[in-house]
């Protein structure tokens, strides 16, 4: 065991943790049973706030549990250890005609993390969230017991564990139903839009004909200009070598490079670039799904104090007004992000008790950590989300008030019955009291 500072993707803090590397899946029950103090499974540390942290406690590092167990090329059923990376799965199965049905905006995450946060992708309206495609989870509890759960086997444990923020046990092995694909290419279309009404018209109009939809929105522009991107799997089948990873941010700059003037310049440049390149194109899945993976450590550009991501979902009937109100607040503050993402979720229930996706529109905003002014801005945004009866995404959160979490997640009380007493996170202590 070793003690070292660990931070999440937002780099807001670097608390010390005791690190225990998991390598042998069959040894995990004994290891957890004999551990001291509350621990938490930790994969790639790509969640933004404190959901993956456990200040002063233990982190069980799962990236050593990265083995494939079996893959049936006829049925597309993949069994792997929970620390396997989404990237490695995609690179294994796509050349064989299969693909993970749902992936988020980075592939540098473990499947365990994808399940614990029940992540979603650009195709939520067609295929739901990650948990919708998980057939079985092997869950190891800190008393050493093992629970194999799935949609029809110990379904209550499954519902608690999907989106369960790692608090119900440690996942060691999972079974995922993959989806047929013709290859790694997508037919995509990029469409600039001038306001939220245009966005919603595009989003609604793309629901039936397009599998992937997402948009970037200029959060400094009150009118809501943005760029809408949609895509469908293409029939092109050649498999090019993975792109060389760029240099990224080799060091942490002394101050955030994201500030008022740089942001305005960047957003205008980006909008005009995209406008210029509007239209139909073929895109490889890696840059289309995971555009920022090619910029390693992009999170460092926010400087030594780190940054927050604020991702909300609001119900569809009030979505337009709520998003408009949030953009106005952000625009007035002059503090905003390169990476404002707006997309609609499909009209479907999520599989987990604490899953984030719900019917409506989700807006994700990044903010450099400027202390008090940033928290004041969040309080204003919170009021809009609460009023709209929306909720925030725990995987991104480092600061939401407990009352907001309780109001947003009605499954919380039921969820608490499935918690593992030997597991705790900074987020669970902050939002659930233990």
């Amino acid at each position, binding site marked *: *065991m*070793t003690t*070292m500072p660990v931070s999440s993707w937002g780099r807001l803090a670097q608390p010390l943790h005791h690190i225990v590397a998991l390598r*042998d899946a*069959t040894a995990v029950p004994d290891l957890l049973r004999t551990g001291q103090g509350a621990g938490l499974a930790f994969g790639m540390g790509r969640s933004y706030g404190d959901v993956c942290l456990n200040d002063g406690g233990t982190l069980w590092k799962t990236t*050593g549990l990265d*083995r*494939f167990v*079996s893959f049936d090329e006829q049925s597309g059923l993949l069994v792997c250890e929970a620390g396997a990376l989404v990237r490695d799965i995609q690179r294994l199965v796509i050349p064989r005609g299969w693909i993970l049905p749902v992936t988020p905006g980075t592939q540098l995450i473990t499947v365990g993390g994808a399940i614990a946060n029940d992540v979603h992708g650009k195709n939520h309206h067609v295929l739901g969230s990650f948990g919708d495609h998980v057939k079985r989870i092997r869950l190891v509890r800190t008393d050493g017991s093992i629970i194999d759960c799935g949609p029809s086997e110990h379904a209550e444990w499954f519902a608690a564990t999907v989106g369960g923020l790692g608090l119900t046990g440690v996942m060691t092995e999972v079974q995922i139903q993959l989806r047929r694909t013709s290859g790694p290419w997508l037919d995509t279309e990029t469409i600039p839009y001038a306001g939220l009404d245009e966005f919603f018209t595009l989003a609604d109009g793309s629901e039936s004909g397009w599998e992937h939809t997402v948009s970037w929105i200029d959060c400094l522009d009150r009118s809501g200009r943005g760029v809408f991107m949609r895509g469908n799997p293409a029939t092109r089948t050649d498999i090019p070598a993975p792109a060389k990873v760029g240099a990224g941010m080799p060091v942490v700059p002394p101050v955030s490079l994201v500030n008022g003037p740089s942001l305005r310049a960047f957003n205008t440049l980006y909008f005009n670039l995209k406008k210029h390149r509007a239209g139909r194109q073929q895109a490889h899945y890696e840059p289309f799904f995971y555009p920022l993976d090619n910029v390693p450590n992009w999170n460092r550009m926010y400087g030594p104090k780190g940054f927050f991501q604020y991702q909300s979902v609001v119900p569809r009937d009030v979505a337009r007004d709520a998003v408009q109100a949030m953009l106005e607040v952000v625009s007035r503050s002059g503090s905003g992000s390169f990476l404002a993402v707006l997309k609609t979720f499909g009209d479907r229930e999520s599989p987990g008790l604490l899953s984030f996706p719900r019917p409506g529109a989700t807006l994700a905003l990044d903010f450099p950590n400027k202390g008090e002014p940033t928290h004041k801005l969040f309080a204003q945004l919170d009021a809009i989300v609460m009023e709209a009866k929306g909720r925030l995404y725990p995987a991104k959160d480092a600061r939401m008030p407990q009352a907001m979490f309780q109001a947003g997640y009605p499954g919380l009380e039921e969820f608490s019955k499935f918690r593992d007493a030997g597991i705790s996170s900074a987020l669970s202590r902050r939002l659930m009291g233990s």
Partner: protein
Amino acid sequence: MKRIAIIGATSLIAEQSARLWVREAVALTLVGRELSRLERIAADLRVRSPQSSIVCKVTDFADARAIASFVDDLDAEGGAQDLVLIAHGTLPDQKACEQDLVVAREALAVNGLSPVLFAEAFARRMAEKGQGTIAVIGSVAGDRGRRSNYVYGAAKSLVDRYLEGMRHRFAGTGVRVITIKPGPTDTPMTAHLKGGVKLAAPEDVAAAIVSGVEAGKPVIYAPFKWRIIMAVIRALPTVIFNRLNI
């Protein structure tokens, strides 16, 4: 298919190397002490490479007779190996070795004697055939004795010198003998090491091994920077070296 055997196949560096080797179809034998752990690794490799043939075998790593008959049997089954990676080892507690000679002897046997006996055993059939590659994982720690880990260092130094001799013996033939010297790597063996040097990622060390073996380099430092660091450390005069806390 190319025949590859990995001794100490549950080591993290060995496992990562195997993942790279199975990118083409190979006949791979994984050798270790615990069958269940070997089988989990084999299952993973089979998913990655359905066209490869992968078998697991357990053996005694300490007994010279057992090593000799194990390698004989393995070679008798399908002919000499094209490539052998000998990767087993432990990182002993230096203080415990100083206090308990049994611990010291064990550390010397596991990290020094056992690997070279395997190398010698595999060399027999390769010598007859006139070709094959034997790659053994040594360590930068074998390049100079240091107070913090000279028992381990001495064992790895034995490996280094032994392989140097084998290289001399096979010069001009098709048999290659390769010494791999990883710097401190982020593996279970080093899990208790704190701070100080930045540990190398096992997949990067594996990539250096696989490309170095491919190129037939006699000595591979992984990552490369350790070649320079150790050249400096070896060149330090004793009066200066003895004052350093390394």
